[in-house]
């Protein structure tokens, strides 16, 4: 960091000396031509020159040697006896012409508008033959002095450039027409802006309004369904929770599969902390968040998604899972003040669980509870829904009193428990522009009272950004974004016995009123603690406060017109304080638990780049090279204690048993050099080569045989074949072919290469020490790499009425670093190894149709589709059984990463269930059947294969499906009529499975619709039943009734439950978003200070058009990492309705 400051100072001082020496020059040239002499002056001053090339004697050589002379005297010297003279116009514009010619300065006033006669703000006006010029103001107007008969070049991004020759003072009205495509300027790797035509790889850029209009606390969630190849899953984990963003499938086994987020050129921390597993971590069970929600969507100018390795190769390691570049807003380049105000209000309602049964009520095994049942036992308080048919009869209730037997629907229970969430966001931004720069200041606050009582989210942002030009050569851009995010009572996701929100709805009897659980004794203690969501609200405190500073500085110095130096420095500092407390009167932690955690994350980057651009005849050359220093530290400190003295106090003096302090401080550095060269031919063929070399501290070791660096190359080719082959633009307006290959990687986990020791307590006066590594650090580790090849095309038909973008990619990821378990006799529990590889291949398609386009009405339709197929292709022999991520989610050779494995239901050759005969009354005679579990291997004839003794070979670890979708896509329709716009988005994910453990519990408690089948004992499955055992099978035709109670519960033993019964297709189609906007016509605002005003109504997550998973949201997951796909009953989905007001003053 010190280095960064030193470099900034160094360049700033240089800049200062340059910025103010505007009128004098120091030149020593011998026999130079005119152009060179003039260029030298232009470099040192703010003068620009205009001349007619025909009229300058090229062969005349100039000798000049001046020291700090005023420019005018130098010019006098140059033009002495040359037959040329000059005159100075406004803004240091110098016109050179032959002596005797008349040069008259003319005043040009103009206005630049688009086809709809709307002013184009910030369009560039240049005097041809010079770099002098101006830009249009807020009304599209400009004013400039130019030599008479001079030519103006008017350009604006996305529009065709126009040239106008001016004779005499003029008042111009200039209309620009949109360019025919491929001219959009895209932010690419390292923040380099490039015209779309020059890109040989797939990249998607979205405007800021895509994330700010219909908003979510975490901006990236709103990209769902909008970018082909980008799968966003935002499990309902509470606001500010982690988002799961997967670009073109998994790229890593053990590391993060989340993209690198780069804001204004600076990579930020976006650690997705794996949802802790309850079993291993005593106080897990909530999503700790990834920090991305601290970004205010109103500050986002654009988002670029670098999907493939070629696009991201310049980021080297860390870009393995792709890169998302975020550019934030700058002050407008127009004079005066601008004030932007945005107010957003959202109402949020939980959508009641579906798929629950209300026909049979509280009870056990087909009867209602009686006094003989031990109803003081926790589980019977709320009970199971294995009772009798609900007919309003009087039965013994949970509190031991008689009550009416009436079902409580999910809707009724939701209404009693959840509230209407209410989120307000107010953002105000001020933009002021001066002659040499602009400043933008933005303030924003968000307050979200979620539908979960007691839970909330707050965010405060303050951003200042200042861009300055010093004398036309030095450009600076500084930004500071300070934010504070509070997540209050983050919901517990998994059902441990502290109580979680979702648990009650699936693990209690459907005739027990939820308010039964909301009863306390005189001491304020809940009477019932089992699956009690009220306990979670009142007796559990789970808060996170995150403070963050995101700062960046970007200094560019134009060494010459062709050579530019750029220095970017950035810091992302994050401090998260967590408080987790469980008051006594809670089933699991009856004595009370207090835990505080502090997480400090810091990431700094310093990057210096030298850019050289030039053109020679038909060729263009764009090159740059530079270096980068990245440093990341992460420290955690956790303090905890249990057993409170005073049950109401959260204070470490109040705990009677302190737990050991836990700390961890992983850190790493990456030093890099990189370079890129792009050669263009006739503006229609571009070849780009890039290379980056990373040196990783994570692979450095004091021990021999460690290679700590890796080189990441890439190449891509863009061919605008419509231009090259001169295809008729009336049909195919533009067409591009892309071919790219590139390599990226990931930063290995740090502190794994050296042995480390820790001291142990003194015994008998002797101190001790031990090796503290759990995993043995081997030599020869290599970083993970991903090599990707892609080809694609981009076609515009009928003048952009139909736009089509297609990509095919194949990527291979190698050298996965995985912790491998070792047998104890090695002395270590495990080691790190390069242990596997996998492939992804897929296609992406984007179609945009401007179906109707008239002055008053338009209809745009955008459709995207992406298919990805992942396969684990190799694992080292010690991982023959695969890598287990989270319960049933594994990686195994031949299957996609994140596949579900478990006990299958037993099926015969015809695919029909095979049943098992059981006795429910303790007698030896079977009296019921259930679907048997454990897969059979069948021979060619369909007969089960047995071992030598006739015992069935049973497979209890079968592949039950992949958690990854086969394909995903979205359709956006946008209609505009005069000042109204209406848009809606439908998206979906198809294929893929989820292991829904919550469903297992819902079945166990008799709450699923599936548990109704055969309840009355009348269902006799038509199939084969094993009346023997697996060791001595005997299959006969079934005559016994099916018992759902035995199938799903079996007296609380789950003896006949197969994992496959919890596995459901994840396929869904969601009516994701709809918005209606009205922009108040300009003429109504003329007399008000308001420049523009837009009002929108927005709704998100309206309903599922299709959903295969009963009860839960198919996007729910305990794990947001590689264990994605296993859910223990997620929170319900919520539906939001909002109102947005956007005004510019």
């Amino acid at each position, binding site marked *: 960091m010190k280095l960064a400051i030193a470099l900034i100072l160094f360049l700033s001082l240089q800049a200062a000396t340059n910025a103010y020496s505007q009128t004098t020059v120091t030149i020593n040239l011998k026999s130079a031509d005119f152009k060179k002499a003039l260029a030298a002056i232009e470099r040192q001053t703010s003068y620009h020159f205009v001349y007619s090339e025909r009229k300058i004697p090229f062969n005349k050589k100039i000798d000049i040697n001046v020291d700090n002379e005023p420019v005018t005297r130098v010019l006098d010297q140059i033009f002495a006896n040359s037959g040329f003279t000059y005159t100075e116009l406004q803004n240091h514009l110098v016109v050179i012409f032959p002596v005797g010619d008349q040069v008259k300065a003319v005043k040009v006033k103009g206005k630049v508008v688009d086809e709809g006669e709307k002013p184009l703000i910030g369009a560039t006006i240049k005097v041809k033959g010079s770099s002098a010029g101006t830009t249009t103001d807020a009304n599209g107007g400009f004013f400039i002095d130019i030599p008479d008969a001079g030519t103006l070049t008017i350009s604006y991004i996305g529009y065709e450039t126009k040239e106008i020759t001016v004779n005499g003072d003029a008042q111009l009205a200039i209309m620009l027409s949109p360019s025919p495509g491929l001219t959009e300027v895209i932010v690419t790797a390292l923040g380099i802006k490039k015209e779309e035509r020059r890109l040989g790889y797939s990249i998607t850029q979205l405007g800021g309004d895509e994330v700010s209009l219909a908003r979510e606390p975490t901006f990236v969630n709103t990209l769902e369904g909008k970018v082909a190849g980008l799968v966003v899953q935002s499990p309902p984990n509470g606001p500010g929770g982690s988002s799961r963003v997967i670009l073109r499938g998994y790229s890593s086994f053990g590391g993060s599969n989340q993209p690198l987020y780069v804001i204004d050129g600076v990579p930020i921390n976006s650690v997705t902390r794996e949802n802790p597993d309850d079993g291993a971590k005593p106080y897990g069970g909530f999503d700790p968040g990834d920090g991305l929600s601290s970004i205010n969507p109103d500050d986002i100018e654009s988002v670029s998604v670098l999907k493939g390795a070629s696009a991201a190769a310049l980021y080297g390691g860390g870009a393995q899972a792709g890169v998302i570049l975020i550019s934030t807003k700058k002050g407008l380049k127009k004079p005066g003040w601008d004030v932007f105000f945005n107010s957003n209000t959202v109402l949020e309602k939980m959508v009641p669980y579906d798929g629950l049964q209300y026909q049979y009520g509280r009870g056990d095994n087909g009867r209602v509870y009686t006094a003989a049942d031990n109803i003081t036992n926790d589980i019977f308080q709320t009970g199971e829904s294995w009772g009798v048919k609900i007919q309003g009869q009087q039965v013994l209730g949970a509190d031991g009193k008689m009550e009416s037997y009436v079902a409580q629907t999910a809707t009724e229970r939701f209404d009693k428990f959840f509230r209407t969430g209410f989120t307000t966001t107010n953002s105000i931004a001020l933009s002021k522009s001066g002659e040499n720069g602009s400043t933008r200041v933005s303030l924003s606050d968000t307050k979200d009272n979620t539908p979960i009582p007691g839970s909330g989210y707050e965010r405060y942002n303050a951003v200042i950004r200042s861009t300055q030009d010093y004398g036309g050569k030095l450009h600076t851009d500084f930004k500071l974004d300070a934010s504070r995010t509070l997540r209050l009572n983050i919901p517990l996701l998994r059902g441990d016995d502290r109580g979680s929100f979702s648990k009650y709805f699936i693990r209690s009897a459907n005739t027990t009123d939820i308010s039964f659980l909301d009863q306390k004794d005189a001491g304020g203690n809940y009477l019932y603690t089992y699956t009690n969501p009220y306990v979670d609200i009142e007796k559990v405190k789970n808060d996170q406060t995150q403070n963050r500073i995101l700062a960046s500085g970007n200094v560019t110095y134009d060494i010459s017109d062709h050579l530019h130096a750029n220095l970017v420095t950035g810091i992302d500092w994050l401090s998260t304080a967590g408080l987790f407390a469980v008051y006594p009167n809670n089933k699991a932690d009856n004595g009370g638990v207090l835990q505080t955690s502090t997480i400090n994350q810091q990431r700094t980057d310093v990057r210096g780049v030298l850019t050289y651009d030039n053109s020679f005849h038909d060729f263009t050359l764009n090159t740059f090279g530079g270096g980068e220093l990245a440093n990341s530290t992460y420290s955690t400190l956790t303090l905890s204690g249990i057993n409170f003295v005073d049950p109401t106090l959260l204070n470490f003096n109040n705990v009677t048993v302190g737990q050991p302090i836990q700390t961890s401080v992983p850190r790493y*550095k990456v030093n890099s050099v990189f370079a890129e060269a792009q050669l263009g031919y006739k503006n229609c063929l571009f070849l780009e080569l890039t290379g980056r070399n990373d040196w990783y501290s994570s692979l450095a070791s004091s021990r021999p045989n460690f290679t700590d660096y890796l080189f990441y190359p890439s190449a891509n080719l863009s061919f605008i074949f419509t231009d090259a082959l001169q295809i008729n633009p009336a049909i195919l307006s533009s067409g591009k072919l892309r071919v790219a290959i590139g390599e990226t990687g990931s930063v290995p986990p740090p502190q794994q290469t050296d*042995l480390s020791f820790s001291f142990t307590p003194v015994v008998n006066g002797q101190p001790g020490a031990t090796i503290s590594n759990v995993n043995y650090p081997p030599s020869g580790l290599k970083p993970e790499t991903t090599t990707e090849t892609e080809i694609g095309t981009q076609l515009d038909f009928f003048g952009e009425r139909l736009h089509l973008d297609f990509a095919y990619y194949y990527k291979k990821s190698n050298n996965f670093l995985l912790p491998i378990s070792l047998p104890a006799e090695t*002395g270590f529990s495990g080691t790190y190894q390069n242990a596997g590889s996998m492939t992804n291949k897929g296609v992406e398609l984007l179609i945009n149709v401007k179906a109707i386009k008239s002055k008053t009405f338009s209809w745009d339709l955008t459709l995207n589709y992406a298919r990805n197929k992942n396969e684990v292709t190799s694992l080292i022999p*010690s991982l023959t059984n695969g890598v287990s991520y989270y319960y049933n989610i594994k990686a195994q050779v031949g299957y996609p990463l994140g596949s579900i494995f478990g006990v299958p239901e037993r099926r015969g050759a015809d695919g029909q269930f095979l049943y098992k005969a059981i006795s429910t009354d303790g007698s030896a005679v079977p009296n019921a059947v259930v679907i048997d579990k454990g897969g059979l291997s069948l021979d060619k004839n369909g007969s089960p294969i047995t071992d030598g003794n006739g015992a069935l070979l049973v497979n209890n670890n079968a592949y039950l499906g992949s958690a990854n979708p086969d394909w995903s896509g979205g359709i956006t329709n946008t209609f505009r009529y005069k000042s109204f716009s209406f848009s809606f988005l439908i998206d979906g994910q198809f294929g893929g499975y989820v292991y829904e453990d919550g469903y297992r519990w819902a079945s166990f408690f008799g709450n699923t619709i599936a548990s109704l089948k055969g309840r009355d004992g009348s269902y006799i499955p038509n199939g084969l039943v094993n009346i023997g055992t697996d060791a001595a099978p005997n299959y006969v035709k079934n005559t016994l009734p099916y018992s759902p109670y035995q199938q799903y519960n079996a007296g609380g033993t789950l003896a006949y439950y197969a994992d496959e019964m919890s596995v459901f297709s994840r396929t869904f189609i969601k009516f994701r978003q709809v918005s209606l906007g009205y922009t108040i016509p300009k003429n109504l605002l003329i007399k008000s200070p308001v420049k523009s005003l837009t009002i929108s109504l927005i709704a998100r997550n309206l309903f599922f058009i299709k959903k295969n998973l009963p009860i839960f949201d198919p996007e729910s997951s305990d794990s947001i990492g590689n264990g994605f796909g296993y859910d223990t009953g997620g929170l319900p989905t919520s539906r939001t309705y909002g109102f947005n007001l956007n005004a510019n003053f």
Partner: protein
Amino acid sequence: MKRRLKHIASILFITLVLVSCKKDLTSYNQNPDGVSSVKPGLLFSNALVNSSAQDMEPRTNYCHAFMQYGYSAFWSGTTYSLSDAISSRYWNNWYNPVVRNLEFILPELKNDPSSASTYAAVRIWRVFVFQKLTDFYGDIPYSQAGQASSMVYMPLYDTQQSIYADLINELRASIVILNNNGTQAVQGDQFYSGSAAGWKKLAASLLLRIGMRLIKIDPAQAAALVQEAVNEGVMTGNADMPVLKHNAAVPNGFYYNLGDQHFFLHKTLVTHMKVTGDPRLNIYGAVYDKGANEGGVVLSTDTSGYTGYSFNSADPLPNTRVTYSVYHPQATAFFEFPYAEVAFLQAEAVLRGFITGDANAFYEAGITANMQSLALLPGNPTISAAQIAAYLAKNKLAGTIDQQINLINTEFWVAGFVFDADEVWANWRRTGYPALVPNPATITGPTSSPGVIPRKMPYPQSEFTYNPVNVNNALKAYGGLNDFNAAARVWWDK
């Protein structure tokens, strides 16, 4: 031009910074929470401490149950049923971290003349640990164990015979080193304040233990080794025995196992000690009202009222539990290798004609030393000289050679109570004494033999996952049996 130079200089500066930063990558990758190197003595000290600081559940749950020292409804050992979590614990606790630390320091010490005696001590302790491991499990990874640094991730198993041969060589080599470096202090020494002489006695005593272990499989070598050990000079009193003085920060491993309600003394032990009038009985156990974890208090230390647990359910319920105030405190000193065992082994060796001497003197020295050693425990329970004399008078070494060997090894059994139950189990397998009647109500596993006290600990289940080829090869020597089956016996127990 000057300016141009400045720009070039600034770019060069950046490049230089990049290159120079590369150097600190290595130090940056060292764990900021850890220490990058420590003195070998510290690791040795830790290895010694960890040899008895780890959970002692295999000893309590199995060895105490097998040897009928005690009983608990919670112990799978009581009914000879297999629990991998418990039977694998010595494998897991000793290989990692004890063997790991020992194997790590050996190459560091090997070529350092100033650490020669430490090098010898580390090798001696490695013998101590590996003998316990192989006596427990049979053929085990030995030559390739603790070699993760050489990327040996699936070590081969060595036969017990070859392990024993190497252990003997190691002891001999260590003794030579100590003879040559007698004045050098042993670093990290927990037992002898760095005295090389103390370690030499321990080495010789281990040689004696190994020699006596071979009486069934190779009596000639047994005799030679015992003679060699005695010539080198074995322990001669309690002052020579390695005792680990635990404290609250690093408790005695039994602390984790004796705190619960479930350690009743066994009827076999109680009855025997009552018959012999053993003054140790009311130190070993007391009548408690309830378990220690329930706040139990001593009701009586009058041994006449002591009732141990009986396999026969018709017998009265037990009332005598291990004395928590003596054996449960975190700071209870741990007797790694009681001198009494050395004396008893010599007594037997005399009777067997391996060495010359007075068997009775060794016998009495063993009993006396053991009774006196109890004073090192919390509360300093003292047995008076008069009590010792009375006990010796009542329990004289007499009868046929075999009867005397029985008496000696029964005393070995009584003396090994609590600390050395695994050694007593090995000694019982070697000699058949004391004669124990197995629990008739045992659980039979897939291949266990009912009603027979197990003679080999099964291999951990994790071996079948992480080192499957080698463990399955090793298992062939035991007829493929990885269960409590009487047919599965270690090499010296044929």
